[in-house]
């Protein structure tokens, strides 16, 4: 790969960030829910999930059903690998990282489809199809916003985009891009208020309702890793990554990532879940045209300030 670097320790480090991040997100979820952070509760539930007998619910398509959590986990970890954390630890530093990141996130869609279809229950299948409609609607603003954000840096490498923000964070230069980015990544992580695949109130549990034990634990782990990945990428793309006055770069990045994650969880807790038809029509009628405007704005900013 032409200009990318994968040192020997990078995969291990990425896995460490994934698992550590998932644990921290678990804590944040407890904080947001108003409970006191209790490590025992977190590890206790994980332990219980792992020790449940590996049940095989009577599902229609066993292969797809049991492969789906693995694919979800793979997509989440691959997305996490492209986030740059510090000048010394850049994850997988591809020169086309800003295409690779949405590519990794895009595999959440087949995974959820496999989960719903494999389960074979009518409501699970409908949940999977609903998710497909939602993701199609929000995948385009996601990709277009990455174009708008990559324009000032003149490069698709996330490290270059972080470096171009050493003076001014991108959130100030391109606020429209940020406004479009947040719902898109919320939709990708199937977090509230966009958690149509698996919310308890929607379609009797939705696409993941048939998962038990280890499979369910893997899905939860994948969702938390996804949250860490998109929060990290938001901090890198819009909040100037590791640039900051006093603290070392890695610490700034960690602070910003956790801040974004906390904000997303808190927003999910507070905001009601709108009907899916409203969300999808909002995406097609409002978000997609505005994404084109965001690209034009990004180009304008590049011409004026960054060239």
């Amino acid at each position, binding site marked *: *790969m*032409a*200009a*990318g670097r994968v040192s020997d320790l990078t995969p291990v480090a990425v896995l460490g960030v994934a698992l550590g991040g998932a644990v921290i997100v678990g804590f944040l979820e407890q904080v947001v829910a108003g409970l006191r952070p209790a490590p025992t509760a977190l590890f206790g539930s994980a332990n219980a999930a792992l020790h449940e007998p590996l049940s095989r619910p009577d599902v*229609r*398509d066993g*292969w*797809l059903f049991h492969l789906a959590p693995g694919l979800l986990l793979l997509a989440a970890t691959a997305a996490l690998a492209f986030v740059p954390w510090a000048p010394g630890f850049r994850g997988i530093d*591809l*020169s*086309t990282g800003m*295409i*690779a990141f*949405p*590519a990794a996130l*895009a*595999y959440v*869609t*087949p995974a959820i*489809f*496999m989960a719903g*279809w494999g389960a*074979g229950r009518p409501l699970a299948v409908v949940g999977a*199809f609903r998710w*497909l409609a939602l*993701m*199609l609607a929000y*995948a385009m603003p996601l*990709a277009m916003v990455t174009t708008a954000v990559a324009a000032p840096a003149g*490069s*698709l490498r996330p490290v270059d985009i972080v470096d171009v923000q050493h003076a001014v964070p991108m959130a100030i230069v391109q606020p429209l891009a940020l406004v479009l980015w947040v719902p898109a990544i919320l939709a990708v992580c199937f977090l509230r208020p966009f958690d149509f695949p698996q919310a308890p109130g929607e379609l009797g549990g939705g696409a993941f309702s048939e998962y038990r034990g280890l499979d369910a634990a893997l899905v939860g782990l994948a969702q938390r890793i996804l949250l860490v990945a998109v929060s990290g990428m938001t901090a890198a793309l819009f909040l100037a990554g590791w640039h900051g006055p006093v603290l070392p770069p890695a610490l700034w990045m960690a602070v910003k990532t956790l801040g974004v994650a906390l904000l997303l969880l808190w927003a999910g807790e507070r905001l009601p879940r709108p009907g899916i038809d409203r969300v999808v029509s909002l995406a097609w009628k409002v978000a997609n045209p505005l994404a084109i405007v965001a690209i034009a704005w990004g180009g304008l900013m590049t011409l004026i300030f960054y060239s």
Partner: protein
Amino acid sequence: MSNLATALVFWPSTALMLVTGANVFRTSSMARAGLLLLAALGIEGLVFLSLASEFLGVLQLLMMSGEMVIMVFFMVMFMPDPGGLMGMDMTHDKRRAATLAAAVGVGLAVLAVLTDWPARVIGTSAPDVRAIGFEVMGRSMVTFLFAAMTILFAMVGGVLLAKHGGRYGRDD
């Protein structure tokens, strides 16, 4: 990429790609057929990466995921037995198609191996993103515009063909 790394990624990916591609037409479950095609074309993206085409490989991975899931969606809508529970055989002319396909496939492979390709190994890096960008926006801009117009016409035409009431609209 070093030769060893290339070979390590290329051979398993290629084998998996051909196996999943062949199985697309052997399974009777529509969801599995679409997802096997996703696997085949997605792994082709990995093959591109192993052949040092970083941009094209990543782009292939990105595009195939959405495209194939849409394909599965349509198959479930329009096929008589999407779950594959009855194991219907949806082929016609199987023997002729198989012999023709085998002949063409083996013929191309033999042609590839036996031809005396001019030996040019200049470097191991495919064009990088900047170069492709300059190409698209510079020399190939007209082609790009034509492709864009084609996409626009396809979108409009597709919506027109598929909307309720057909192309001429309904009276009500």
